[in-house]
């Protein structure tokens, strides 16, 4: 609206500039240029020297726990930034609001920190970011808005319950089978000491004890082989054809995560197999049998991003060549239902020397899954508060 007037002022100033000896006209015209240039270079300098980074301790969050995310805005310019508005985007499943607004004023060559909490409310993979910056100079002449790539994927792990009565009475030795062949000695399980004899391995010498008694002593280990466990999860949609499908899909994943965690606590080797959808692609997840914290986290991460599948029936997963199990591996099959084809496949595994435990769940106990007579263990997983009770079917 005022552009016309400003143009008119410019025009009359120009007349003053050209037609009369009027120092102020020259100075004011120069001032106008200085104003324009200062506003331009100030905005440009801020734009160029501004940076935003995101800092997070971890990108993996347990459900129900909060995690801080910090945004650090760095002003590398030699002039202060009077006001800047920062918008950070976060998924509603991990944050109380979709947009987080921060208003900042930063000194020259300084940084400003803003943080907010992420709160894992639903299992899955979500992302925070990007961060947008809005800036208008101190005169309202120039402005810019920038987007910084501060996107980070946040994995929310599924809920984990305590399992009250883990099925120990099975035929399998819960991961370790005693073996008399020395070759399978487990160096983590020391059963005693004996005096060193010629031919014993030097690496078995217990140096502390030897130093104490001034004689060489060697450790003796419990001979063992590691059998490991595989948790097989059925996420085939048709097997979940009851009312609250999504709710029970979540249950299945939570039960699986709880089993993984329980076996991790027992320091057992564990693997995961599931028919599922990840990133909208039907896939079979088959992990290697391994143990340790890193492996545990890896399995939980996989469980976090799984969705049910529409095109991959459970029997397709139960392929012995694909699963490639060592003899004696215990299989925990977590499924709401079991069709005939899957049952036959599991019987094949049983015949190959694997121990099968069926863990049923859902709105009601499926009595057909009572398969103790064929050598399976069958349980119904009942979730109560923070616990999973395994009820024998």
């Amino acid at each position, binding site marked *: *609206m*005022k552009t*016309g*007037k*400003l143009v*008119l*002022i410019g025009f*009359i*100033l120009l*007349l*003053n*500039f*050209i*037609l*009369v*000896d*009027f*120092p*102020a*006209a*020259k*100075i*004011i015209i*120069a*001032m106008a240029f*200085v*104003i324009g240039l*200062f506003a331009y270079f*100030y905005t440009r300098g801020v734009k160029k020297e501004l940076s935003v980074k995101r800092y997070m301790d971890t990108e993996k969050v347990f459900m129900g726990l909060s995690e801080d995310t910090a945004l650090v805005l760095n002003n590398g310019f030699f*002039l*202060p*930034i*009077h*006001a800047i*508005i920062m918008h950070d985007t976060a998924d509603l499943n991990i944050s109380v609001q979709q947009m987080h*607004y921060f*208003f*900042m*004023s*930063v*000194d020259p060559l300084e940084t400003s920190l803003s943080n907010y909490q992420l709160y894992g409310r639903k299992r899955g993979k979500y992302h925070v970011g990007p961060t947008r910056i809005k800036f*208008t100079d*101190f*005169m*309202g002449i120039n402005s810019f808005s920038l987007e910084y790539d501060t996107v980070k994927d946040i994995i929310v792990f599924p809920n984990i319950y305590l399992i009250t009565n883990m099925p120990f009475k099975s035929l399998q030795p819960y991961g370790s089978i005693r073996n008399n062949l020395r070759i399978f000695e487990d160096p983590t399980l020391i059963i005693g000491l004996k005096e060193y004899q010629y031919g014993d391995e030097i690496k078995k010498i217990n140096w502390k004890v030897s130093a104490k008694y001034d004689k060489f002593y060697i450790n003796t280990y419990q001979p063992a082989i590691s059998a490991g466990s595989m948790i097989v999860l059925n996420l085939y949609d048709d097997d979940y054809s009851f009312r609250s499908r999504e709710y029970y899909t979540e249950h299945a994943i939570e039960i699986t995560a709880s089993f993984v965690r329980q076996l991790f606590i027992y320091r057992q080797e564990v693997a995961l197999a599931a028919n599922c959808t990840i990133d909208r692609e039907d896939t079979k997840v088959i992990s290697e049998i391994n143990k340790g914290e890193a492996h545990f986290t890896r399995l939980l991460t996989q469980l976090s991003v799984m969705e049910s599948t529409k095109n991959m029936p459970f029997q397709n997963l139960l392929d012995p060549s694909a699963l490639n199990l060592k003899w004696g591996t215990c299989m925990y099959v977590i499924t709401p239902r079991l069709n005939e084809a899957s049952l036959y496949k599991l019987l094949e595994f049983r015949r190959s020397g694997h121990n099968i435990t069926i863990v049923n769940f859902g709105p009601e106990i499926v009595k057909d899954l009572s398969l103790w007579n064929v050598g399976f263990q069958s349980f119904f997983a009942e979730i109560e508060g923070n616990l999973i009770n395994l009820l024998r079917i």
Partner: protein
Amino acid sequence: MRKGSTAIYKVFLWFFTASAVCTLYYSFCIYLLDITFQYLWVIGYIVISSLILSFFYFIPKISKAFAILSSFTLSMILIYAAKFALLFFLPPKTFYNLDDIGVAVTGSTLFLLILGVFVMVNSKFTALDDILAMEDSITDKEKYISYLKEVFAGNRKHRELERYIGMAANLGILFLMLTLFTLMRSPETKWVYSILLLFYTFGSIGIYLVLYQMKSILDWKILGYEVPKDITKRWNRIFVWFFIPLIVIPLAIPWNYQVVELKFLNSFIAEQTSGIKKIDFSVKPPLSPVNGTNTAAVETNAPLTVDESKTVEPKKGIEAFLPLLYVLGGIVGLYLVLAVIGGILGVTMRYKKRSPFVEFLIRRYKRVRAIVDGILNVLVFIGKLFLTLLGVSKFKSSAPKELSSPVARQLFALFDSDKEMPDEKKEEIKTIIREFVKLIDITNRFLIPYRFYYGPFEYMEKVMNSIPEETEVIERIVEIFNESRYSLHLLEELKKENFMKAVAYLIGRITDTHRAEKDRPADNT
């Protein structure tokens, strides 16, 4: 938090008021008293009075009335003291001797002028400052924000600075024009005018900066941002960084020269503006006993730029201002020509894409039309009032323009809470609906028949299906329509403009397509 800003503002307000009043006074001296330097000391009075007023006015513990009264009293004491001091110390030739009444009249008139300019400029600052200061007294921040929203609901203009910019620009235009003519006539006044105009420019810029700062903070508060308290500290530091090059660079580059010397123009202006003394407050010195002439008057009032051998017959009355009137007439004439062109283009390019220059011309047309409408309304009002007084007809206030089409009325009737709406908002909704109905008329005729039970979005979705390539435009139209109709706030000008443009574009697009289809030769196969 705002102490620093207030201090900066005070200084610039002082610059602005003093320089504006001084320029007006100085131009008055030149044009009406035909004197250039004799009353220059009065400028000192104006500067000091403005300073006193700026100082007293912002003392929070005293009332504004008392501050004005104190400033006035102090200023009058000063002007009398100055008069006697000047009489005592300076030779009488350097100024006109004013008698005591003359001093009182000059002093109080100038103080009134200072006060007028001061209050006019300060009104925006006071309004913004009061609202910002209120935050400290309200403990509940949510209450404060809802209060702000309430105050500014439907009237964004209250916190815009356009009025201040307009006033500063208008005064600037006036001063520059006065300067141009004065300097052509009396080039020796260039230093006084230069200093005054530079201070005026500084004052205007400084006040704008502080007002913009306050306005922005208020805007952010209304939007719900947590504005840090030290924001003004950094902001003011940028002002310092800004003013250093603003002062140094323009003064460092050459400025004391004339680009083109147009002697004929100068002498023409001198001839045209050699007005006679209209008002003479001075107590004239006694006539010379030798030849009976007023020597002081001859010395002081001699024409300065014109060749002394040539006697210029001074113009009288309105003739002295003719060149000014010519220039003003020229500007108004040019404006009207632009407006007429804008009006023609507005009609011919109604549904076509317009370039920014065409938009500029159309805006001129709208402005002139608004002014003409305003004048006509006033005339009609006076006419009706006159007829009513004579008893010829009954006075009826004109009813606001209502929506004529039933579709428009239906769309407006969907609106429940019209009683709580300010009239400005209602008018805006009606304007938007009118445009929307125009679009519906076209789509109804050429694309999809409109049924009365369709909602705006429902119908537009159907339109979208028939012209999917314009989905974005239609979505924008519906979005702005919904925002206008269902919200209590006024739309931004830009949004309104975008809406009009989008509707015009879509109508043009649909009609063009229809025409092209009509013109296509029939398929013989």
